[in-house]
């Protein structure tokens, strides 16, 4: 055990956990966050995506020791039901979900992309989504929602 400090959605937390524990467990089990999810535990699907120091990161394969002191943003940190992020709003407007389990993967990956590249081309969006999964195949609406948010974020 050793103690690891993370700043999650603006608040600093200290964890007494095996430093090899993946970040996902600290977020979903220690902090009880519901955004990041376990989908594969292998870095293959994106369900566990959070933003670490500005970059979309798969928390299921990121040991805590690698992110000591990092700033982490999760799905709940980017907007609320009352004040949703433009991506969250776009997903509601487009009704871009079926089961919704992949929403975290899609929105957080898109957010990291649009934050650094607000005018991302369709090709760049596809590239960013190339290993993000939605097994309900809500692809049509999700891509439409991302494009809608891009327009709104670009002003």
């Amino acid at each position: 055990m050793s103690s690891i400090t993370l700043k999650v959605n603006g608040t600093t937390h200290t964890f007494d956990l095996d430093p090899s524990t993946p970040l996902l467990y600290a977020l979903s089990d220690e902090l009880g966050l519901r955004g990041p999810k376990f989908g594969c535990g292998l870095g293959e699907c994106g369900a566990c995506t959070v933003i670490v120091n500005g970059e979309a990161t798969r928390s299921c394969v990121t040991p805590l020791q690698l992110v000591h002191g990092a700033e982490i943003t999760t799905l709940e940190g980017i907007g609320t039901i009352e004040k949703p992020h433009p991506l969250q709003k776009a997903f509601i407007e487009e009704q871009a979900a079926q089961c919704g389990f992949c929403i975290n993967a899609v929105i957080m990956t898109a957010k990291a992309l649009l934050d650094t590249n607000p005018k991302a081309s369709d090709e760049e969006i596809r590239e960013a989504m190339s290993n993000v999964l939605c097994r309900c195949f809500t692809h049509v609406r999700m891509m439409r929602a991302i494009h809608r948010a891009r327009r709104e974020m670009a002003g």
Partner: protein
Amino acid sequence: MSRQAPHSTSLSGLTPDAQGALERAGLSRRAFLQGAGVLIVSFSALGKAATAGAQLFGARSTPGAPSPDQLDSWIAIAADGRVTAYTGKSEIGQGISTAQMQLVAEELCVPFDNVHLIYCETPITPDEGVTSGSQSHPTNFNHRNLAQAAATARETLMQLGSRHLGVPAASLVARDGAIHIKNQPAKKVGYGTLIGGKHFDLHVDPHAKRKPASEWTILGTPAKQPDLPAIVTGQFEFVHNVRLPGMLHGEVVRPPEVGATVIGVDEGSVSGMPGVVKVVVRKNFVGVVAQKPWQAIQAAKKLKVRWSPGKGLPPQANYYEHLRNQKPTRDSLSVDSKDVPEKLAAAATVLKATYYYPYQMHGSMGTSCAVADVRGNHATIYSPTQGVWPLRGSLAMLLGLDQENVKVLFRRGAGCYGLNGADAVSYDAAILSQAVGKPVRVQLSRKDEMAWENFGYAFVMDERAGLDAHGNIVAWEHEAWFPVHGSRPGYDTPGNVITGALVGFQSRPFEPRSPAPEPRRFENHDNSVPSYCAGKVGDKSEGTGTIESERVLIHTVPSPFFTGPLRSPARLQNTFAHESFMDELAAQAKVDPVAFRLRHLSFPRLRDVVTAAAGAAKCDARPSPKPDLQKTGVASGRGMACVAYEGGNGYTAVVAEVAVDQDSGRIVVKRFVVSIDVGPISNPDGLKNQMEGGALQGMSRVLGEEVTWDDRKVTSIDWATYHTQFLGIEVPQVDVVLLNRPDDAATGAGETSITVVAAAIGNAVFDATGARLREAPFTSDRVKAALKLRA
């Protein structure tokens, strides 16, 4: 009153979220049931006979379950007028919760936002069996369940309103949660005043008048998914997020090979590991419980288990041959006009083709998860199962408990599409919790989910048909083989899924039967009979087509893997063969495939979807393949397929437009045009969403998905080895044409579009290239091989 006892205890097991939901609904179920001191006893005096024994479809009178013939089992109205509806059909991403809320709002004449829906909690919702097979719409919309309960409640409120306002019911109207006097809008009384917080204490009236679709104001309009704002902001409680006080974490250790059994477990191999609470062994079930999830995972990895070797698997390379030649078989005859051989002998041309479809998996986005709290002789399980009541029964068997002491509370999981690991993981959590006497959460690893789920059926299908000199089909024969092992556990067969089998329960036995008995009535639930056949059994023809010489024989054989009802089970595979073969016949007859279909279809609703899809896709009328084929480079084409899903539970047709790179063998679908008729449309946007999702999921299945194995174990165990289509693909345009039939009965929708896309894509490839694909998935190697075979 039939339901006092179970509730008070049930609520103690609710998570804060569930409690919150009840409170947001404006009442607590307990308060409602226990605090409603005033029972309305005077209904019969109002002339509202408490009709006994209403015939309810699909809902069972199960001991300990809210009685389905009681109105209070379905509908509760709070003092502030807000409505809580209880249903036995669960939300699994298919949008049924939204549609059910619309239904209640419509029949009860209250705003959509005033309805709160609670689904699938055994102590408080009626038993409606399993949510599956596109049955939820028919069950709760057509039959005397939720819809009839809401209509009964409205009629009752009209009578109460009449008494309250002193005006005959004929001069009243129900609107916005109140009874109004017609022409005097200010004179009204709210539902809350009339009944708020009290029991109706009435039977559901089978004669209560449903609102005709022509009067709908809420149904038939797009409604938004109520949970979506919470989901997109990370507030929503999936089953994966259920946390109970004192909860521990379990990780299972599945056999390394199919059929391997436990010889010994060395518990010492994990003793002293941080957080480990217990190693649990029950026959061939092995699991570890620890304080934290990562500790459980580490310990499960380290635990030394000696396993016997597996029983070996048939080689995948010639599995289809093995399937076809296995004996004994269980045979079913769907139709047999007895004259097929002679009609084929007299035909001008006879065509034969064999189609192959692989095992595929549900492969849910999230691995299955459940939380169980088993203490003493009581159990509460939070589960994403599609059947809380059946699960209650089979869990009770597995735990050796009285089923009245087992509660199953549905919580949403990741999209399931049939039977993923939801039931198995509920058993896993329950077994581990029982062993430690504390709540235990289990979420399967990706590999454990994929290697052991109940796969969708592999199929081998022989098609044979004859054409006369004018190119009309004169006879059609279909013979198919598919493997089965296990399925949904139902109320009493836990051995139908992996965990139940590991602890020693038998799966549903395979019962050989050959020859098949003569069909007694026409049934086409599995779409084994092509849409173009007359479906004649006895002296009735109940099929959707014109071909009177017909024979359909299906063989099942035992499967080495668990199998289950993956979205559109058997229907998708049979339809792939029928609709591809229909295209082959049209090409042989040199007739436009849309016109050729219409020539052999008699049922108007199916003809209409075919015409609608072809029209919207602006298909030019000509035979396939298209003229002037180029044999290299990228070729484009279009293909059509249609189906009367389950013979008559939804009608759909699709046109696929594809581009085939003839050098690489890669297929890219550019566009789908889907037409759909599900009777009256409850939620047009929700229906479109289902059609789009079904089309793309069907596309992923036919282009890449295939379970693989070696001589001992499944080898497609993650997203690198099981090939699905990610979000970054070139997403086809999907146009959906909705055919609304407000005066017909509601049908299913969720499994319709997925049923037809495989054939439509194969037919489009043929149109583009002249190459016929008969084996799914259409990998680039198979495409290249088919291109080489071209004349």
